[in-house]
């Protein structure tokens, strides 16, 4: 019997086990992120490979619950009624798409926002201390 080298099989990755971006951490319920243990890159969601250095050594981390609203819109089409949606730049620099819940303070780009959780729903809302800008 001759010895030959056999190509290893690449394996499929179950990267979509959890659709929810919310997880439980020591600090409470937070957005789930991933941090690369090789280059330090932080990403939104449960990731299996670092999009920066392609290392597979990534850890699940809690993302900050506060950030800045980069931009937003209110969607009027579809079945959900009027749905505010925005991009939030979290305090560690990671950007996430998020439902925005409007309070008394009108939404504007660059305002501070914070994570809110209502049963299974998560959203961002103007941070306490955000004032009306007239």
């Amino acid at each position, binding site marked *: 019997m001759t010895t030959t080298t056999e190509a290893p099989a690449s394996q499929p990755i179950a990267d979509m086990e959890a659709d929810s971006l919310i997880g439980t951490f020591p600090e409470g319920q937070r957005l789930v992120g991933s941090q690369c243990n090789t280059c330090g890159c932080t990403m939104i969601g449960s990731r299996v490979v670092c999009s920066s250095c392609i290392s597979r050594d990534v850890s699940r981390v809690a993302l900050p619950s506060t950030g800045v609203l980069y931009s937003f819109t209110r969607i009027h089409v579809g079945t959900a009624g009027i749905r505010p949606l925005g991009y939030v730049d979290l305090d560690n620099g*990671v950007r996430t798409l998020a*439902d925005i819940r409007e309070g008394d303070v009108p939404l504007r780009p660059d305002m501070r926002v914070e994570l809110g959780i209502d049963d299974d729903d998560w959203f961002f809302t103007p941070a306490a201390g955000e004032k009306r800008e007239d």
Partner: protein
Amino acid sequence: MSENVFVISAAMIPFGKHRTSSYVGLAVSPLIDAIRDAGIEKSDVDAVYVGHSYGGMMTGQRICKEIGLGTVPTVNVDNACSSGATAIHEAWQAISQGLIDIAVVIGVEKLTQFGGGTLPLSPEDREVKQGIIMPAVYAMRATRYLHETDATPEDLALVSVKARKHGALNPFAQFRKETTVEEVLNARRVADPLTLPMCCPTGDGAAVVVLASERARKRLDSKPGIRVAASVLHSGHVAEGFRDMIKPEISYDSARDAYAMAGVGPKDLDMIELHDAFSIAELIYYEAFGLAEPGHGVDLIRDGKTTFGGDVVVNPSGGLLSKGHPVGASGVAQVAEAFWQLTDQAGARQIDKARWAMTHVTGGGTAGLDHGACTIHIFEAA
């Protein structure tokens, strides 16, 4: 060694809701017309490239078999809204490398199959699961643009007003009626600050161009043609954090590379067909193409610099906002417009003495990317 490539014919159907036509029914007549107009036999065709996004398996082969155009390679290309332009890029590559002499490029899409609403996006995508739709992406660009510049919703409406004015002159356009700023602003809201006329319509369409090498063109006794001066295709680069949504790097970089390849700059262009899927896009792309400094694209629409009689006519066809946007067909239809304008066949919307044209089409809603794809072509009358 790269060889000169020419577009030697173009044909398309009027864009609109053609509910009784299949992909085959949409594409066959422009396919025949483009072959006839090029003065070639179907046996002269060395390869077929077909851009579509929702046509399903073997769309190109289903179309080609109707006219007995087989044997040669048929390549189906999906790059979302950039599918048709990507197909042209592939044909250009093969001809410019001297591998083939004549290629037929078909762009085709049937969006009425979805019964209305916004474009279906990949359910595998994280932000799609969160409820993103393309109008919302552009609406957020618009919100940010209005925040960072002195632009107003009236300026966004002016883009739609210009598109409708141009479309009214184009028998191929889906919308052929002019509109006003008031009508645009008072229309149904889609995603703030965008109203319905600031969003491209759903429709069906097909467009076909024939590309040829210089050698083949001479053999065909020089029908009117335009030279492909640049063909550039870029893919989106992921950003896990901040992305400046009003300075889309994929369009900036593609334009820079296209200008370098063609050896011309923005001031040389007589016309541009750009990806105005939503009105805000046009203002941002003025800046990406160097027609205006960042933050000042809005000045061009206010001052009428981008319509007939201005510095450069942007979307003389009416653009996606007025001509319509059957995604896979749009990139080929833009090149058809460039062909007709640069060969003096554009009728009522003819730009006087047009010599240089640019076409630009991006594609796709994908989390973390500005766009999935961007294709830019520059053409010279020849």
